[in-house]
């Protein structure tokens, strides 16, 4: 493998694939914090040039880390498909991915021949438009109580968080989201408290709401997966099993997660679904990730944050998830410093997830200690909608009053659907028409417009129930 590049008389050496990958990455605060980033823009470009010449076989010959995540990635690779690609270089793969008829080849089997490391390498020699144009044709369709991910569908998670998990507050927030046409991806609340009784109460409240309005939607309470499983054992309705995951074994240990535990949890939820009505598919997992998480728990093992993120998708892929999203600006400026880094990371994560075959959504967000603002989320939202992102978040007024950060709002989600001509999931779209929230595929004039709209919606639901 080529370890050095000379650029206008200056020669750059790279010790190994791990160093080459890190140096080739676009600027990220987390890589600087870890001390592995390129030392100059010249070195960054030199690393990209060297990386573009690495054959795909090089990534199997030189694992970046020995752990159970690497084991999972290697085991799940389609060897037969990989043999057809092994001599391609990263640079040639970029061109293949961007070629006109790639989606068909990808669908046929190429997606199973790509490892997270290969995908992460390719992303770092792509421009922002490359990342958007390459992702757009790749569709990952999943089913739970509705169908997510078809071409032209942009799903929305309702995120009705509350600082004390007050049921009335959570339900009212979710209803507000439904009136904007949000909630097809999931009505998913992050609990303020991880007590089992608390999770049980929230699971029942969300399920009661879904039952009362008759929406073909799934609920989720985003507690630690062991808490959700304890709630399930107590009879709580668990539609989707959520967990935050990382791309190294050490990161997952930091999250209290094992691959075996996730597999057993998935089986338990599938078994419970078999005893309940309304499920049209067996995608039952919901994973969240984000660049920088591995470093934040000191579990990165010297690997750059883009590669760690891709490896997290490798974990997710093994469990046939319904939803995966990268919470792209959540953990602070030490990992993604500003608007430029957040936007780049959002486009990279979406592309990498899609290329690996995941139902990829993005929580487009920022915290108040990052150099970003609502214009940043507006910009990334429009970019990702054109990239065919599976789903985004809907947070009332963009202000998460429990997690203390800003994401995309119910308004934003409804607005970007109109802007790019995207629809909700088909089953959910039909329900929106029935209840009068939508009229002819658009948000109806009387919907989502204050307390009177809520009264009208409730009456409409009551009529439908008759």
């Amino acid at each position, binding site marked *: 493998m080529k370890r050095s590049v000379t650029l206008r008389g200056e020669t750059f050496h790279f010790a190994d694939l791990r160093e080459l990958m890190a140096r080739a990455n676009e600027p990220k605060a987390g890589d600087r914090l870890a001390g592995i980033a390129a030392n100059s823009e010249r070195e960054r470009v030199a690393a990209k040039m060297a990386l573009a010449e690495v054959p795909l076989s090089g990534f199997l010959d030189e694992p970046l880390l020995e752990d159970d995540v690497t084991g999972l990635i290697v085991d799940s690779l389609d060897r037969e498909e990989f043999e057809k690609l092994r001599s391609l270089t990263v640079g040639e793969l970029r061109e293949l991915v961007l070629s006109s008829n790639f989606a068909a080849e990808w669908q046929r089997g190429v997606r199973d021949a790509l490892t997270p490391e290969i995908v992460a390498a390719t992303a770092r020699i792509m421009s922002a438009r490359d990342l958007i144009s390459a992702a757009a044709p790749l569709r990952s369709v999943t089913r739970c109580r509705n169908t997510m991910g078809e071409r032209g569908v942009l799903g929305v998670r309702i995120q009705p968080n509350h600082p004390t*998990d007050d049921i009335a*507050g959570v339900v009212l*927030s979710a209803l507000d989201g439904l009136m904007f046409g949000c909630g097809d991806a999931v009505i998913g609340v992050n609990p303020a408290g991880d007590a089992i009784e608390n999770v049980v109460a929230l699971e029942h409240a969300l399920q009661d709401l879904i039952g009362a309005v008759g929406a073909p939607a799934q609920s989720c309470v985003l507690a630690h997966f062991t808490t959700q499983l304890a709630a399930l054992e107590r009879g709580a309705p668990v539609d989707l099993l959520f967990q935050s995951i990382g791309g190294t074994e050490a990161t997952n240990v930091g999250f209290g997660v094992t691959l075996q535990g996730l597999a057993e949890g998935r089986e338990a939820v599938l078994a419970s679904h078999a005893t309940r009505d309304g499920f049209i598919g067996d995608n039952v997992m919901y994973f969240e990730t984000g660049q920088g998480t591995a470093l934040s728990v000191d579990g990165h093992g010297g690997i750059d944050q883009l590669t760690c993120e891709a490896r997290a998708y490798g974990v997710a892929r093994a469990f046939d998830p319904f939803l995966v999203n990268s919470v792209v600006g959540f953990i602070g400026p030490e990992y993604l410093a500003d608007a430029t880094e957040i936007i780049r990371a959002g486009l990279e994560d979406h592309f990498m997830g899609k290329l690996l075959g995941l139902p990829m959504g993005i929580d487009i967000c920022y915290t108040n200690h990052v150099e970003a603002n*609502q214009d940043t989320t507006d910009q990334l939202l429009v970019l990702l909608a054109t990239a065919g992102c599976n789903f985004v978040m809907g947070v009332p007024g963009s202000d998460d009053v429990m997690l203390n950060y800003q994401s995309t709002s119910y308004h934003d989600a409804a607005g970007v659907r109109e802007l790019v001509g995207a629809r909700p999931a088909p089953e959910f779209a039909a329900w929106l028409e029935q209840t009068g929230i939508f009229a002819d595929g658009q948000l109806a004039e009387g919907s989502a417009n*204050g307390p009177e709209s809520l*009264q009208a919606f409730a009456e409409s639901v009551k009529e439908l129930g008759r």
Partner: protein
Amino acid sequence: MSADLPDTLRGAVDVGGDVSNVTPARLLIGRTGTAYRTSTQLQLRADHAFAKDALNATFSLDESPMKELVKRFDLFEVTSEAASREEYLARPDKGRRLEAGVAETLRENCLSGVDLQVVIGDGLSPLAVSSQVPSLLGPLLDHAATRGWSVGRPFVVRNCRVGVMNDIGEALDAQNVVLLIGERPGLATAESLSAYLAHRPRTGDTDAQRNLVSNIHPAGVAAEDAVWRILGLVDAFVIQGRSGFMVKESARPTSLSEASGR
């Protein structure tokens, strides 16, 4: 009018225009097209401006309300390895370590091996500390003493990250450490405090070995409820001999209406 609706919907409709009774979230705020009303748009900008300012707020142990705590609990302060707010934001690793020599300072000024050591960290919102800690610290230490626990001398860590609990555990060998730390400022409130709890924290411990009571502020978890939840978790640590994700809280957080009724 809403009497014959399902319970779930009736409750929501009855709340009607009085959203703030049940949540600080921005609900039923109207729209123009799919955009915010102008008042919403400008209010969001104002709240963001205040949240940015809260990051760089500060408190002094020589001034109210902290000086009263100094008088009553003999509070003193130390710092992490992060020397400035800028370094604190860019280098979380430094915020997780006590400055050189501080371990010795702690051993000279605090009892080792106590049942409960309370630590106060500025975190991302010093404003949260000066707003919430004065009503929390007294009841917490009083109730701990009532339980018969030995209680250490509390102190403040400046430029503090949660991981500093490990160094404190190493320095003082406390059975249980509770860190009261300012959360990152949000739009609805910039004064939210978290309590991180760990049983015998040591170098290398992560969040998997810690428990959390978050959202401690007047519109969230009331100070009194936070005290009971912290004590309940420490009880569980003592019984189970561990802390972290395997230790689950036994009660759900109190709702807003319940909290305000006390």
